[in-house]
């Protein structure tokens, strides 16, 4: 007994160590304090966030990954961003743009032999062509665009983002930004009319360009102020200096950082960064703290760790149906609890950073569906102790986090909420209820899949397991009915409060209604004796189809109040998922003698009391 307790503690410890390991990765490249640099808060898209978030999201959008492999080793997102901001000549040579569509290559006159990776410099001769092609493609409605048109628009957006990043701190190609700022400060006679300040036309134009093109707002409010509206871009701050003669200290700081980085002077860079950070700490303690939390959160990537662990749990739990059911099942549950804690940590940190209830967009709905399903799965495992709750929960946890990972490719997953959605009360009730409805309908569906797969393909589904699965599915369907019904009606009430229409037959509303109706059908069919054990399972699997339609399908229609934009890339996956579910439903309806598990009453010696289970 004692020994097993030690083993359990070791397993828990090892799992937690695995989860926090990313924090101990080195963050000094060439002596520069990149980790610290990544925690500097800036403003982008209405939200104050650490530079690290900008780096990761931008690299994700441009390159598709959060790190960049180079000839020797890898660059972290921050290493890469520092180059883009302050050493663009080097950054321009990094092969970060990926083009997989051969038509795009041909259209730009690039040879397919050159591979699929390109640097910004490779595109310089073709920028005009890209812009023209993208402008042509943009005139076509989003749903009707050809793969080439979608690809060229994407490429144009990536190039634009890169270009804007490069011109966020200094005009790309500036040799010594610090000296430039110092000279500007020396030669200017502040005047509301810029031309009277003594600045050359050329210098004025480059400041205006910097103000216009810059991607993020690097300069905090001065005097210190919590109002996000008072953050400025580098160029804007310099233009303001022309008229009022007050040079913001942060401008000099950024200029010193840029010149030091360019000159490979790590000591000056680190010293300047250190003093800037302590200044910010004094001026904006809350923002700095949040930026720090966010950058630690970025580094930990709790959802990624959880995703990997869910695979392990699924393997453990599924193996427990074949060998050592008690031991393996126990460790699967312990791991599931630890992983659930990691998943919850991620969820709660996001809620803290956003100051919002858990679900605010499609990405967070995926994270939350996984979370809800795992929570319910833990309860099931606690009661039934047969590995099914763990395995199913782990499977849904893995799939939903994988979906979330792909959804995060579009950039920042913590966007600001549009005016209509800006009410925490309704987000916390309606959205959470509906999403829990999705989670439980999926859980019931995946439990039923376990039944069908184990029953049809393995001999492991005995009658006791079958009947406990039946009770699980039935209970979860009840739960799903409750949450989807209440959530849907709460949505109606929100709509009534917001625009006076309880029900408007909007696609997303209809999707939620379909889930309610389907769950109600399952329950009524069961009560009316229209289906029994296997019928219940097949119906529960169809619940997966209905829920995936409501979750993703309706968004692909591109209409209605809830549409999040057309997601063409997900469409084939949805079709494949639906097809797989229908195939499994058909397997579920095969005559029992074709199943490998012996659920049917034995033919030779029929036992009357077991006839019931054959339904």
């Amino acid at each position: 007994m004692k020994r097993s307790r030690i083993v359990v503690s070791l397993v828990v410890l090892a799992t937690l160590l695995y989860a926090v390991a990313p924090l101990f990765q080195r963050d000094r490249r060439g002596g520069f304090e990149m980790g610290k640099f990544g925690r500097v808060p800036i403003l982008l898209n209405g939200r104050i966030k650490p530079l690290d978030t900008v780096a990761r999201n931008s690299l994700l959008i441009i390159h598709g990954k959060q790190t960049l492999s180079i000839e020797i080793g890898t660059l972290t997102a921050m290493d890469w961003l520092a180059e883009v901001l302050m050493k663009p000549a080097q950054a321009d040579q990094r092969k970060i743009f990926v083009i997989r569509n051969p038509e795009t290559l041909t259209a730009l006159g690039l040879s397919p032999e050159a591979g699929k990776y390109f640097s910004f410099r490779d595109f310089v001769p073709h920028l005009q062509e890209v812009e023209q092609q993208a402008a042509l493609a943009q005139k076509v409605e989003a749903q009707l665009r050809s793969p080439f048109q979608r690809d060229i628009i994407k490429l144009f957006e990536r190039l634009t983002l890169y270009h804007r990043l490069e011109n966020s701190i200094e005009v790309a190609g500036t040799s010594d930004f610090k000296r430039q700022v110092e000279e500007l400060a020396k030669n200017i006679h502040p005047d509301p009319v810029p031309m009277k300040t003594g600045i050359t036309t050329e210098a004025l134009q480059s400041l205006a360009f910097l103000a216009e093109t810059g991607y993020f707002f690097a300069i905090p409010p001065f005097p210190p102020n919590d109002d996000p509206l008072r953050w400025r871009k580098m160029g804007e701050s310099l233009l303001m200096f022309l008229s009022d003669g007050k040079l913001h200290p942060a401008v000099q700081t950024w200029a010193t950082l840029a010149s030091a980085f360019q000159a490979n002077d790590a000591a000056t860079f680190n010293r300047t960064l250190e003093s800037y950070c302590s200044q910010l700490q004094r001026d904006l303690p809350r923002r700095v703290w949040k930026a720090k939390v966010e950058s630690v959160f970025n580094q930990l990537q709790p959802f990624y760790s959880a995703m990997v662990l869910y695979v392990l749990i699924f393997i453990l739990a599924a193996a427990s149906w074949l060998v050592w059911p008690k031991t393996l099942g126990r460790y699967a549950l312990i791991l599931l609890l630890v992983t659930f804690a990691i998943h919850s940590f991620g969820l709660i940190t996001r809620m803290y950073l956003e100051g919002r209830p858990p679900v605010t967009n499609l990405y967070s709905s995926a994270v939350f569906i996984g979370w809800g399903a795992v929570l319910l799965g833990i309860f099931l495992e606690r009661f039934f102790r047969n590995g099914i709750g763990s395995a199913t929960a782990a499977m849904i946890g893995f799939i939903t986090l994988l979906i979330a990972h792909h959804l995060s490719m579009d950039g920042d997953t913590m966007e600001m909420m549009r005016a209509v959605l800006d009410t925490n009360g309704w987000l916390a009730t309606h959205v959470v209820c509906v999403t829990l409805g999705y989670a439980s309908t999926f859980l019931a569906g995946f439990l039923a899949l376990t039944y069908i797969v184990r029953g049809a393909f393995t001999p492991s589904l005995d009658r006791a397991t079958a009947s406990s699965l039946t009770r699980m599915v039935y209970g979860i369907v009840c739960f799903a009915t409750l949450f989807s019904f209440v959530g849907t009606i709460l949505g109606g009430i929100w709509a009534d409060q917001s625009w006076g229409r309880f029900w408007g037959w909007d696609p997303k509303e209809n999707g939620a209604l379909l889930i309610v109706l389907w769950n109600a059908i399952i329950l009524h069919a069961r009560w009316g004796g229209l289906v029994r054990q296997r019928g219940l399972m097949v119906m529960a699997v169809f619940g997966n189809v209905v829920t995936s339609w409501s979750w993703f399908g309706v968004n692909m229609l591109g209409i209605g109040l809830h549409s999040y934009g057309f997601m063409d890339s997900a469409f084939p996956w949805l079709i494949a998922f639906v097809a797989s579910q229908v195939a499994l439903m058909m397997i579920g309806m095969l005559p029992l003698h074709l199943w490998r598990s012996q659920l049917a009453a034995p033919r030779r010696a029929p036992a009357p009391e077991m006839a019931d289970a054959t339904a």
Partner: protein
Amino acid sequence: MSTTLLQTSPFRALASLRLTVVCLALGMLLVFLGTLAQVNWGIHRVQARYFQSLFVYWSPPGASWKIPILPGGYLLGTVLLANLIAAHATRFQLSKKKAGIILLHLGVILLLIGQLLTGLFARETQMRIDEGQTLGYSEASREVELVVIDTTSPDYDQVVAIPEGVLAKGGKIQNPSLPFTIKIGQFMPNSQLVMRSQAPQAPPSPATQGFGKSIVVTAEPRTVRDDERDLSSAFIELEGTMGSLGTWLVSNAIPERQSFQLDGHTYSLLMRQRRFYKQFAITLLDFTHESYAGTDIPKNFSSRIRLTDLERNENREVLISMNDPLRYRGFTFYQSGFDNNDKTSILQVVKNPAMLMPYIACGLVALGLLLQFSMHLFGFVKKQSR
């Protein structure tokens, strides 16, 4: 007597769970197809054809006949309602164990009735109001009216309004306060208007008076897009005691009044969005529109208005913002949009006598489901722990 009725086989069929399942399944099909149809037909037409109808019809393109292919929302709702009530009449007795089931179905019944009432009696209109402007009416966004305004008196106008429903029927319209009859020549719910100078080949206009002579009108199918508005037009002929006064073109595309004299009175003709006058007036003092820092993501819209009601001695300022409407005398004013460089606010004005029903229904259903399932759950936990 009642027992014998309840035991007849048609009544049993009406009360059966099989019928419930069939109705719910058909409901799913209807909702699914109704969602897909919105891609091509827009939400308003789909709502009328699929959900607020007895049957959904199909006809091959260009044919004049149609066949019902699916029961519509009203029919399914009614059958479900009958099924529910019948089931409760035959099967369920009042008992503590059934309390949850009864409560939740009562909620569903209320929800269905509430939606039926809303479909029949609720009215959604819009108020487009400029800063500084005072309005005492709201307008239907998808319905027009023809008005004849007697502007003879310097102190007041006398208005005769003819709603779209009457215009669409055609024929002659007579009103005791007008010394002429109005003959509807052709009413086009949606149309395209072009200056005659740009379409010299067009046939001559039926209009003999007003701006209609210089405009070519072609009928168009009603728009299916939710962000577009129909341009309705009509040719109307006025007939006085001495014969025809002429034919005019009226259209909501041209908000210009066309005046003429008759028997010492001055009359104006105008087609406009149908108006609904209120017993109170609203003045837009200020409209504000905030965005998040450094973006154009809208953060909040709000309209500061003054509400004036002479009947009830109300004269106060109100702030209407997103998710925070004004409720007054049965109407609810929602911030719905803006226009004209943030100088015009668009308010959605809703009157729905059945507004409270979903709230009560929601409470009942939630309570019923909770009761029912927690009874299951506790029973289950007890059994497991034994």
